[in-house]
């Protein structure tokens, strides 16, 4: 139970689920639930503005920062700042020195791979995490439950890049089951489009497995916990008193209530997974936005680094925003206010 909070890097999550209930956990990590939609949108806009500004000022605040190439000395900081904002609005993220192309184009080329990776792993860990959590709650204290707990807790203690390296060694080289790097086999003509898809999926397997395994523990534990809590509620007793079957009760009465904190959590984990691509894509040389971050760092390509940072930060905010909206839609207590 309390393990979730420990496993989850956004620390004290489960505590809140237990003590304060679902509403507060949401309030804790996203915006206040009862805030009206306009205030919420404005809050997100403010945060986006702060991130954009940070992105502009950070390199200029660093004492020995890489100012060259970013600043042209004949303009005041204010002029540069307005310039920067206008450029961003037009999709001009600057020039990537290492790729010798506009940052925007470089990002766009990589985006699809990151979307594929994050999307696939999210679908897998959400489904598998929720199912295994529900099974664990169902079989609480039995072998299945303990086994799942131990396995998934140990998995969450692996840094994603280390697990990825182990996968490359064992599944990539020793057993030679999967390709070891990249997103596609290069310089190959496929006879059928099906062959392309298969090749892409084959390359996707290890990175997606790494991301999934290192992220699944949290959602598993929260589902287990949330399910156990909900199954102990009075209204479950009421449902039993009506003579409804256990499965019907789990499906109709428990799941929706148990899902409320999970939705918030999924958003938060997607945020973590997006960040996690930085490490996983680097290990597997998977050509997504995350690998651009590592590439840019080692090549000292600061415009690209900043562009990739903006992309990642805005993606995470977008996911949080969506979760905020879905939550309001699902919980009738919130909708009314």
């Amino acid at each position, binding site marked *: 139970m309390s393990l979730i909070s420990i496993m989850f890097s956004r620390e004290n999550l489960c505590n809140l689920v237990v003590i304060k209930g679902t509403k507060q956990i949401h309030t804790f990590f996203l915006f206040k639930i009862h805030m009206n939609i306009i205030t919420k949108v404005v809050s997100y806009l403010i945060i986006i503005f702060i991130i954009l500004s940070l992105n502009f000022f950070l390199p200029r605040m660093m004492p020995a920062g890489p100012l060259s190439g970013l600043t042209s000395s004949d303009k005041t900081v204010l002029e540069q700042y307005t310039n920067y904002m206008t450029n961003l609005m037009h999709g001009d993220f600057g020039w990537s020195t290492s790729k010798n192309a506009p940052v925007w184009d470089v990002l766009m080329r990589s985006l699809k791979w990151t979307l594929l990776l994050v999307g696939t792993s999210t679908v897998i860990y959400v489904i598998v995490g929720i199912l295994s959590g529900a099974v664990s709650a169902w079989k609480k204290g039995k072998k299945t439950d303990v086994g799942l707990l131990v396995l998934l807790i140990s998995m969450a203690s692996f840094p994603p890049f280390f697990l990825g390296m182990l996968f490359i060694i064992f599944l990539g080289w020793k057993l030679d089951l999967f390709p070891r790097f990249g997103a596609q086999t290069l310089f190959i003509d496929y006879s059928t489009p099906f062959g392309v898809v298969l090749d892409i999926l084959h390359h996707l397997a290890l990175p997606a497995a790494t991301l999934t395994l290192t992220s699944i523990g949290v959602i598993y534990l929260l589902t287990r916990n949330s399910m156990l809590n909900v199954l102990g509620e009075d209204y479950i*007793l009421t449902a*039993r008193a009506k003579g409804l079957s256990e499965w019907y009760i789990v499906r109709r009465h428990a799941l929706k209530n148990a899902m409320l904190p999970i939705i918030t959590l999924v958003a938060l984990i997607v945020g973590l997974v997006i960040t996690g691509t930085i490490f996983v894509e680097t290990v597997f040389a998977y050509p997504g936005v995350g690998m651009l971050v590592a590439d840019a760092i080692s090549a000292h390509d600061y415009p690209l680094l900043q562009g990739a940072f903006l992309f990642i930060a805005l993606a995470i905010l977008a996911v949080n925003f969506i979760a905020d909206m879905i939550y309001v839609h699902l919980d*009738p207590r919130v909708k*009314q206010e």
Partner: protein
Amino acid sequence: MSILKLTHLNVHFPTQDGVVKAVNTVDLEMANGERLGLIGETGCGKTVLGMSIIRLLQLATKVEGKIVYKGKDLLKLSEEEMRKIRGKEIAMILQNPTTSLNPVLKVGDQIAEAIQLHQGLDKRAAKEKAIEMLESVKISSPEKRANEYPHQFSGGMKERAMIAMGLACNPSLIIADEPTKGLDVTIKMQIVKLMKEVTKRKSMLFITHDLGAAAEICDNIAVMYAGELVEYAKTEDIFKNPLHPYTRGFLNSLPSMGLKPIRGMSPSLIDLPTGCRFHPRCDHASAKCKTEHPEMVEIENGNYVRCFLYT
């Protein structure tokens, strides 16, 4: 013909601090159409007794004895068979409507699902029946209310909804657990009046610590103390002539009788007193009461008491 007969019912459950002996050797019989009040202080085991009848307690709970409903021993039924009885034959109205209603489902749907299940109606017909039920418990504009969520209901209305839910499948026996708990005096009176009306010609086990409500509704009253029955009598007898010292104390603690509380505290169900369970708090306790456990004895025409003063 009795509708419900409990014989030597024991309900014990293990906890971290020890075994809670919530119900001890309870014998109780309810006639068809009888409304029986089960009264006692909080924590005397009356809710557990109610829940044990429809087998809603946790798996670890040990239930021994017989619970015979219409000739069938409920303890011998399979879980499958038991589910067909819950809600349809025996309905339980649980306490605390605020937590007992599912916050994310519409009230109407929560009533309709039992109707749909037990009476084989389709979704729409069940919902219509649910609206009728809401009307029968005097909720105004029931069509609108049926589509609202519990948090949009006031405390009294939630209680009404719970009652409607219990009555929805026209059960033969209703177990109502503290339906008047935590309500304002005026609302409480309305609920009591409603309960009396809707349970006419029905059997009901009315679990409460509110003597006034029990007096208003019930034909007979059983008094429970520390997991066992200490007195059973017709309602008018128990008010006119309470026999057991505990019943007397309980009556005296009512506001209308002068608010004199019984001294001492009710015992823990884990560590029960020896002899008569009431002796540490009893003004009439003798040496015998400390060591020997009194039996239930019949005093006159069906009134029973468990006290050495009457043997």
